[in-house]
């Protein structure tokens, strides 16, 4: 039995201890925005926030997570109003097939929550998600623009 706090909802889920968080989110909680890409924490399509930190959920067993830890999925990000990263992604038409983009957005949102004065080099080294369509140039532009806006809003 896993006890998880997903997007602010405390859930009790009857799964085996070794079940990766990704599959609990997708199949038991029913939130399919978080994607399966590799299952070995390589590609980042499964990125969620664990207490605000971008975390690859596909190789993280639910038994390693406590009910006190806050899990945020793409469905919970900007649930009231779109997150600045989502808004910028729409403005710059970043997504192609879109499959990896939820992970990209979660990774970017986590990075910017920690530091809106991030450099090109930081973004390049911190966002290690794989995109096979090849959206990287717009991802880079998008993170920079979102960073500027978030920094401006914080004064």
């Amino acid at each position, binding site marked *: 039995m896993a006890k998880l706090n997903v997007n602010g909802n405390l859930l009790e889920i009857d799964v085996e201890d070794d079940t990766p968080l990704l599959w609990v989110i997708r199949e038991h909680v029913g939130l399919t925005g978080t*994607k*399966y890409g590799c*299952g*070995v924490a390589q590609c980042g399509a499964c990125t969620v926030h664990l207490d605000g930190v971008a975390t690859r959920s596909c190789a993280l067993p639910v038994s390693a997570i406590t009910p006190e830890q806050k899990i945020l999925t793409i469905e919970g990000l900007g*649930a009231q109003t779109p997150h600045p990263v989502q808004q910028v992604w729409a403005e710059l*038409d970043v997504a192609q*097939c879109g499959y990896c983009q939820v992970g990209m957005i979660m990774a970017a949102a986590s990075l910017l929550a920690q530091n809106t004065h991030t450099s090109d080099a930081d973004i*390049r080294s911190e966002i290690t*998600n794989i995109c096979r369509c090849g959206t990287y140039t717009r991802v880079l532009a998008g993170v920079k623009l979102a960073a500027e806006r978030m920094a401006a809003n914080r004064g």
Partner: protein
Amino acid sequence: MTMKHAAPVNTAAGRVTRRNFLGGAAAAAGAFTFGFSFPLPQNAVAQTATPEVNAWVVIQPDDTVIIRIARIEMGQGALTGLAQLVAEDLDCDWSKVRYELIDPGANKARAMVWKSQQTGGSRSIRGSHDYLRLGGAQARAILVTAAARQWGVQPDTCSVTKGVIRHAASGRSTTYGAIAAAATGIAPPADVKLKDPMDWTIVGQPVKRIDTLDKLDGSLVYGMDISMPGMLVAIPKACPVHGGKLKSFDAAAVSSMRGVKLVLKVDDETVAVVADTFWRAKSALDALPIVWDEGENAEVSSETIAATLREGLSAPEAFVGNRAGDAKAVLAGARRVLEADYGFPFQNHAPMEVLSATVRWTPERCEAWVPTQAPDTALTAVVAAAGLPAQSCDLHIMRIGGSFGRRLSTEYVQIATRIAKALPGTPVKMMWTREEDMLQGRFHPVTQARFRGALDAQGNIEALHMRLSGQSILSYALPNLMTANGDPIVYQGLLADGPEGHLGYTIPNLLIDYAMRNPHIRPGFWRGVNLNQNAVYMECFIDELAAAAGQDPLAFRRRLMRNHPKHLAVLEAAAKGIGWDTPPAPGRARGIAQIMGFGSYVAAAAEVSVTNGQLKMHRIVAATDPGHVVNPQQVDAQVAGSFVYGLSAMIYGECTVKDGRIEQENFDTYNVLRLDEMPEVEVISMPSGGFWGGVGEPTIAVAAPAVLNAVFAATGKRVRQLPLKNVDLNVS
């Protein structure tokens, strides 16, 4: 007809409510605006009760314009471009455009009114622009006729601006939405004319994609995301040695594991576990004892395959793809001959979303939800595996998380249907693991090339013989398309003439021939197909000849390209963009490459540095002439994405074979380019008009040779065997 009304929606608890910005109405009302009116998400426009104007266009009373899209959107942006083509000649208000997808059964039922749905070969736009523009123009004519009849005037006295029809003489006006109901049954006039490209206002504009918003909050339902009541999950595993068989498996060893419902033989080479969730199915499959009959290829390795191909490089018999003069005779008597061998490995498509298909089979009916690039073939696969009459089978198009040619094949659709047939009445979602996807790919074909080039005293190429040896995609995938010259697409970009991809060099004595050598690893159409290795081979060897002749690579090419002005124009543009005429900064070096493929002319120029054996790609400039550009910002995205795909292949892309099977099972051993290595990309779009070329693929081919030629300029090292990760770039 449309997908979403038939597709189940995610019903599980915990799903957050749809974000307000996703509702088109909310966005339009200003609750949240992006500065552009976004269409409703796809499922919001399905199942409209409004009658259509024609097959391509439905207009609702509120002036919403629904454009039917028959080709597959898989990230390449075709959906938006195709809608632009219809909207242009329809003269509608682009901000009111929504879309609807067509299922192949609906297309068949209407005598293929939406034409081919096959989506590959960079063909979506160039293969349908004419009938889409006509469809838009005919819908416009029907709507104008309806208004003119109501007003008792001649249609040709009416004008249309952004979906508003006006009769200037009487001052009357109406909108498409207001008149659409009266347009039912009106036949289009026979003499509908298409707009002159000079008058285009929607085509050629950098409009944003009309299918973006539900990609940004996780609400878009891809094939993998389907859920329906009572659904089970199946994971297949096929013999890792292609062509081998499933000998036996011990279902009893796993059948008591939690959630496991069924362990079954799917076909001669495939076993599958069906369970209530992915993880339980995977856990059981991992624990399942399986015995394979690996067959005659169990000893094959990359080395034995390479040896077979190497034999083909000098084999006396070969198909001829392009011949001028007598290359062999001139080479035999030449004063100076340069020789080089090149090689290009197997590669996996590795789309982010692995293969899946969901099927519900009953003795009366079979229904499938399938991400596919080939809807018609996929439906045929469902029918074949279901064992039911065609009219009892249906296939709903699902959105795709990248594909790059992988889903042109349909074997996974058969596997999914066979599994569902074993569980009558139960919807079964078949999902592959990444590992299965990597092992059971339809791989970029393995080839080698041998060049012999003769230079005269002035450094001109007198003769060139290019021998290709290796794998034919068509002989495996579409043998009925083989010709007397073997596999005609082996010569992509190297042909003597034709609109698809002809060589941009005039060489007096030329022979390009091909020894077909087919290993057992199954090949497929991999984004860019054979243009990729052909461009590496030809453009790198031309560079070698230029160096041997002591000439600048651009100046050397110019002399060969006098009869090929479109090839040359893109090359000049890319070279200018990188600053070819001015020396690079210290430590940096440049390279160029060009080719024609998929009907378009493309070139690239790269600037790199190599420090302590480490390559850094600083800048890359692409120039593209696809004839017409429907959406410049989508062309930018495709060209930039093509560099990622092409450079990933160049640096990392390699699937090796040991004991008959592919060795790479995931991204940890099959790495791809990531953001940290992405160079700055500059895209020069230079449509010269008069023809329609593709954009999704050709630039991939010039990415690698431009960088490899720059690597030579930086290090003096020729990289002839890809990928680059295996090559030591340290200068000794």
